[in-house]
């Protein structure tokens, strides 16, 4: 079945619209992906559709740390059970938590905010998982919060907001944030003022 002036079948049009709703995918790429799906064999395509369905049906966010969990009914996810709850690393997104987890540096647990404060996009603190973090801190198990938000304007603003509310309400909790400064493999000559300023402020003595 085709519709109106557009000679493409309605099913293909729907697929193009669905693909273009993904971040970073424009209408042309959505078309290309749709034609690729059409050219694939049925088995491969159904595998993709099945994976998408399973992700939405079987996974949810942990009520404590807001990380992905397959256990919908439980209060705590695998990470909440297995990791030390004294040290909580606060990150913007799930992918940030996975990156830190893969490095093996952090032994404590995580808290995923699911975004950062971004007034330009209408995202305020109420849209982030900050209330869940406060509930967690109320339990009194946390001794240190490590702010690991991105070193962007939005990430820094989120860190400053968290710093303000945590230091005001939880005086016994130690607040730290990841060091800012020069990254490995960069040239000093091309560094921006913010990075240089941070690098100078956080300079360390040579033993």
């Amino acid at each position: 079945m085709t519709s109106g002036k557009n000679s493409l079948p309605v099913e293909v049009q729907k697929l193009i619209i669905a693909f273009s709703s993904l971040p970073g995918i424009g209408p042309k790429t959505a078309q290309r992906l749709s034609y690729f799906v059409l050219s694939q064999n049925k088995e491969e395509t159904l595998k993709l559709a099945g994976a998408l369905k399973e992700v939405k049906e079987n996974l949810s966010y942990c009520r404590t740390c807001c990380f992905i969990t397959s256990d919908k009914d439980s209060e705590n996810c695998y990470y909440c059970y297995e990791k030390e709850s004294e040290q909580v690393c606060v990150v913007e997104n799930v992918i940030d938590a996975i990156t830190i987890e893969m490095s093996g540096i952090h032994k404590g647990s995580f808290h995923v905010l699911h975004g950062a404060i971004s007034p330009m996009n209408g995202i305020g603190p109420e849209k982030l998982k900050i209330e869940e973090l406060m509930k967690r801190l109320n339990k009194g198990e946390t001794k240190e919060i490590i702010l690991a938000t991105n070193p962007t304007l939005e990430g820094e603003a989120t860190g400053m907001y968290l710093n303000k509310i945590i230091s005001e309400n939880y005086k016994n909790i130690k607040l730290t944030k990841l060091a800012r400064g020069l990254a490995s493999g960069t040239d000093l000559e091309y560094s921006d003022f913010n990075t240089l300023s941070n690098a100078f402020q956080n300079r360390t003595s040579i033993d």
Partner: protein
Amino acid sequence: MKGPNKHLKGIITRCTNYKESDRIFTLISDDGIMKFIARGAKKPSSKLSGHIEPLNYIALYYRPSKSLNSVSQVESIHSFLEIKKEYNLILKAQYMMELAESLSSENDGNSSILNLLLSALKNIHISKIPTLDILIFEFEILKLQGFGISLFNCTNCNKELERAEHYFSSNVGGFYCARCFESKSLFSESVKVTIDQQLILRTISRKNYKDLINFNLSEKEIDNCRKLIRDSIRDIIGVQLKTVKFSDL
């Protein structure tokens, strides 16, 4: 065939990640508002990373393109580090950037908005009353873009306004005298403005900013003035800016 590289200065107002490591950003520049793509800017080793951040005043070289202009070289001129250290100042700066963005047009070759935004951002962290600086910025940017608020004459009959409480309409961007207000029954679209509030706005319009210090202004008076201007802005743009509610914090 690719054209020669062009040079431009401007303030980055917003950034979005694109594909694996690219960033698309909006710049308020000497040539109006423009969009660029910085390829590979998300990589830590990129020469562009760090510079491509909102609230950075940069100089850049770019290759003009029919779609998105591609950045080849960037240098930071001013990073507004004092603003970036304070949460409330970040929110206020973002409001000013969104306002400047919404009143700018593409490739208009007018650097006055950029200059106004630059001077407002440079002063906001040393200001004793940052909301007053925002009010001045709002007032000035409207004037600059031809939407200046009529403060001295009635917007209906054009008669000079006497020293009294008058009615302000954000719809027409000015005041009604008592006679026009009553004869036209403009109750629903107007708000009563005190003599003090009118005096603040008139002083700002005359650019006598030093005189404002002698007024002993309260935050409430400034907020009331800002409400009038904000309503005008909403009527001009047609939508409420997303950052408005954050700029009052």
